[in-house]
């Protein structure tokens, strides 16, 4: 039987890990992820989840321990945020290069200085080139459901790539919602036993993570790229299959709201999309045909899907909770890249908002949308930093 409970995003993730029958958990505490580590310790300590719980001394070691478990042919899990994710950086690249199907949750948080424990997407966005799949969720329910889906995506034999499930720090990790926790036997049917390729098995001895150069190296890298590209269709298929069994799905790679006839589309990732939806409603009431596109998958980047939804529109407001310092918001750059070559390139305003945990108010989004309606030159690279421009 499924049950309904009030859960925070963190708690929802922990419940998903329990349902997925993870065998090894290695986690290091950091705000705002800590409740995941604690909840899982409770589940393991009470016997609700039969697993080995490893208390590591750093986040780099946390993912390393998970990788070790995968090589021992056991499903593993870790979670981190911010500085911890930065510390884990080498291991993310190692995991994806070695084609280890690890799953980790990121409670998105700013990396200081300026020190802030509050939410921002800089931490996971700056890991975008490590070769890991990245999924951004909007609600605690989606956090639970996507974490379960993540194991299936990662372990798919044609994918075999680590998956990061990203939830906004505090706004989503710590806020409670009514969440439906699936029936364990349904999850067991949905998720097959742990599947990985590279194991330490005396009956089939191999050397794992070898060195290479030239053609062999490039071959392996190309296969790695194909694996994560393959995830584009796998992410959509898994979401659809999940929908059939559990009655909930999230649109696969992207989630859209009123985009079909929109002249202006707000592009966003994560939980602030709730405010974006409200802004769309308000704008529509005022006669502006607005829409919203929420990217659920950031890696692999859904270029075709983005072109499909944004290709016909006039203006975009791309909201970034991050900045690639020296250029612009990362989501904005990626969107520009996806739209390259269109005959009618939309005018784009990059709205940098929600840094350091700042709230994003519906009225602020509307104001930037109004500003976007006034842009006449599509070539202009306009960046608006929240709080700093008086509208």
């Amino acid at each position, binding site marked *: 039987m499924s049950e309904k409970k009030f859960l925070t995003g963190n708690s929802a993730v922990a419940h998903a890990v329990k349902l997925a029958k993870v065998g090894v958990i290695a986690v290091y505490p950091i705000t705002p992820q800590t409740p995941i580590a604690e909840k899982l310790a409770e589940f393991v300590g009470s016997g609700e989840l039969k697993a080995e719980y490893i208390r590591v001394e750093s986040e780099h070691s946390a993912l390393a321990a998970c990788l070790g478990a995968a090589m021992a042919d056991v499903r593993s899990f870790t979670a981190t945020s911010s500085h911890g994710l930065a510390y884990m950086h080498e291991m993310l690249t190692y995991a994806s290069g070695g084609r*280890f199907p690890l799953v980790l949750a990121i409670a998105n948080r700013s990396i200081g200085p300026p020190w802030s424990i509050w939410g921002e997407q800089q931490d996971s966005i700056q890991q975008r080139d490590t070769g890991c799949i990245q999924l951004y969720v909007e609600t605690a329910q989606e956090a639970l459901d996507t974490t379960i889906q993540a194991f299936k995506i990662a372990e798919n034999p044609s994918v*075999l790539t680590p998956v990061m499930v990203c939830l906004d720090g505090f706004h989503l990790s710590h806020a409670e919602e009514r969440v439906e926790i699936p029936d364990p036997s349904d999850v067991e049917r949905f998720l097959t036993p742990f599947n990985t390729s590279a194991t330490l098995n005396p009956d089939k001895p*191999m*050397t794992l*993570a*070898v060195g290479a150069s030239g053609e062999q190296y490039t071959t*392996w890298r190309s296969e*790695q790229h194909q694996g994560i590209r393959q995830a584009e269709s796998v992410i959509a298929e898994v979401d659809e299959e999940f929908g059939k069994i559990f009655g909930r799905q999230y649109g696969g790679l992207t989630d859209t709201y009123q985009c079909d006839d929109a002249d202006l589309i707000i592009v966003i990732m994560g939980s602030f999309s709730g405010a974006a939806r409200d802004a769309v409603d308000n704008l529509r009431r005022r006669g502006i045909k607005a829409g919203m596109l929420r990217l659920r998958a950031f890696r692999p980047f859904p270029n075709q899907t983005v072109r499909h939804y944004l290709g016909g529109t006039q203006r975009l407001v791309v909201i970034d909770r991050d900045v690639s310092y020296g250029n612009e918001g990362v989501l904005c750059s990626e969107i520009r890249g996806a739209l390259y070559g269109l005959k009618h390139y939309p005018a784009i305003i990059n709205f940098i908002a929600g840094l350091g945990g700042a709230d994003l108010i519906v009225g602020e989004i509307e104001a930037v949308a109004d500003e976007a309606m006034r842009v006449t030159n599509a070539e202009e690279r306009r960046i608006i930093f929240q709080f700093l421009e008086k509208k």
Partner: protein
Amino acid sequence: MASKKVKSVGPHWVAGNTPINVGSYTRVKPKVDLSQCTGCLLCFVFCPDGAISFHGDKKPVVDFNLCKSCGICVHECPKKAIEMSTVESNE
């Protein structure tokens, strides 16, 4: 040794696949004077590359394909029964 590809995904390879014979880089190899050898096993134990083996008859056999000519066996033999000598080919 022929390379065998095992069906696996990623930068991993089957154990024991060694197309290069490391002994092929040197042309001096240990020659054992069997009349002096007491079968003490020290050469077998001390060879870092496992190039020396004993096939149950207390006399050492050197695999030239594996021998890097480091000279440890020559140096450590208590009876000075081993010396380095030039070989034509590795056999």
